[in-house]
């Protein structure tokens, strides 16, 4: 990131602390989006109060698929971001 180079040691540590808090927050958001999405897509029967095995299977596959999607998207994102940085375009490269 263009402006990070200009940070001294202490500033970098402060930034890292904030990033760790942000990472935890991002993880929590990702987790609750995942739950909400898989719940919404897989659970629609409210005639009973426990999860049907069909619903549970759907939720498990949904989580699985979502994690794999995120991973793949993360890889592609970083490739594109790196390519962009080399071209000196948007996105600011390290």
């Amino acid at each position, binding site marked *: 990131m263009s402006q990070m180079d200009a940070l001294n040691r202490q500033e970098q540590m402060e930034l890292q602390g904030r990033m*760790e808090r942000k990472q935890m927050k991002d*993880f*929590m958001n990702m987790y609750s989006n995942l739950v*909400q999405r898989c719940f919404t897509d897989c*659970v*629609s029967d*409210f005639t009973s109060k*426990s999860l049907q095995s069909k619903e549970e299977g759907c939720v498990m596959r949904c989580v*699985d698929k979502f994690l794999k999607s*995120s991973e793949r998207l993360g890889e592609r994102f970083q490739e594109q971001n790196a390519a962009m940085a080399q071209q000196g375009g948007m996105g600011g490269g390290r």
Partner: protein
Amino acid sequence: MSFLFNSNRPQPSSQEKIAAAEAEIEMVSNMFNQLVDTCTKKCIPPTYREGDLNKGESVCLDRCVSKFFEVNVKVSEKMQGEAAAKQGGAVGGGGMFGS
């Protein structure tokens, strides 16, 4: 959701302890907000013929909470399993800024 907060550091500072407690409360609070959002969408039709909850809506909400917790347990177990499979590394999921 304490599995999220297993820190290995020996002596957390005051700020770290407060941040951890804050994060835990935020996790529960987030979950509640999602629950409200999800379950009202599932159980309350957007017509509003009366202001009270009718019987069907009430029962639907109760069951929705129950199922929502069950789904949370299943998902968090699965994520813990995944994290453990990657031999105890930080739970990072699709995180971009893994240290």
